[in-house]
């Protein structure tokens, strides 16, 4: 893994027109960008399109990157924006609308999944639960709780108000908790 200073140097060279430096930045970051894109759009093919669009925009807008944030954070913002545009377009052309409140499957009502499975399995369950969320809720919780973007940035990239972003975040967290920890009231009380 390259140090931040190396990335900074590549960014400076790319800004000065060094195409190979930008290619190197792509090589270093495309897996991360793809992972975020997939988590946002929930489909491999769509994620590939979002990633390509992200790098085209990043390449075009690189001169405007001032270095206030890390290069990876800047890329995450562009990815979020591209995914949002993509989902908006897909929503307009889709005839199969996603249900706003999907049925939540009960994994195991008797026990805490964290005790029942290892961290890898919990990650898998969480990844699956994220994909079950409506895209609008999913985008906010992914950007805030996984990628640590500030509310203001998330709202900006998704084209919503900051308070709407917060409300979506809390609703998303609530649904994920209900999906992963579907304990009965009494058992919850005993679990403390």
């Amino acid at each position, binding site marked *: 893994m390259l140090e931040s200073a190396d990335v900074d140097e590549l960014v400076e060279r790319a800004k000065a027109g060094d195409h190979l430096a930008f290619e190197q930045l792509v090589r270093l970051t495309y897996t991360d960008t793809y992972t975020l894109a997939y988590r946002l759009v929930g489909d*491999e093919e769509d994620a590939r399109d979002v990633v390509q669009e992200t790098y085209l925009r990043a390449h075009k807008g690189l001169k405007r990157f001032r270095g206030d944030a890390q290069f990876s954070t800047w890329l995450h913002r562009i990815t979020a924006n591209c995914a949002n545009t993509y989902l908006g377009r897909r929503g307009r052309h889709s005839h199969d609308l996603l249900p706003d409140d999907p049925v939540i499957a009960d994994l195991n009502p008797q026990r805490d999944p964290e005790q029942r499975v290892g961290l890898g399995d919990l990650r898998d369950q969480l990844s699956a639960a994220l994909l079950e969320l409506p895209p609008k809720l999913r985008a906010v919780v992914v950007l805030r709780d996984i990628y640590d973007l500030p509310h203001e940035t998330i709202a900006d990239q998704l084209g919503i108000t900051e308070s709407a972003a917060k409300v979506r975040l809390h609703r998303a967290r609530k649904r994920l908790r209900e999906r992963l920890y579907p304990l009965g009231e009494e058992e919850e009380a005993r679990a403390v």
Partner: protein
Amino acid sequence: MRCESVSLQLAEIADGLNRLPLDAERHVESCLRCQAELVQYRRLLRALTSLRGHYLAPDDGLLEDILAALRPPATVHRLHRRSRKAAYLGGIAAAATAGAAGAIVIASRLAARQSLAS
């Protein structure tokens, strides 16, 4: 205060950045159900954070596709120019070869006719 009215607020304060209003805080202090829910939110946030270092592997070819899309127009033009030049040269070479082959065939037929006539 009822648990239902605190529930969404727990989702809000689980990351530790905000505090509950005083009445909600008092309720949680005395309510095992809400305390358990708060614990679950904190576990959920830890699990979400752990996903940050967990990367998905894209299909083969994505990197090449990205780099191809980013290739500067000058390079593309240069490549096009090069391939056009190669196509011209190939065409000329093919035409020359075909011409030479034709000439050999005609010459051999003429030679055959002359030998038959003599």
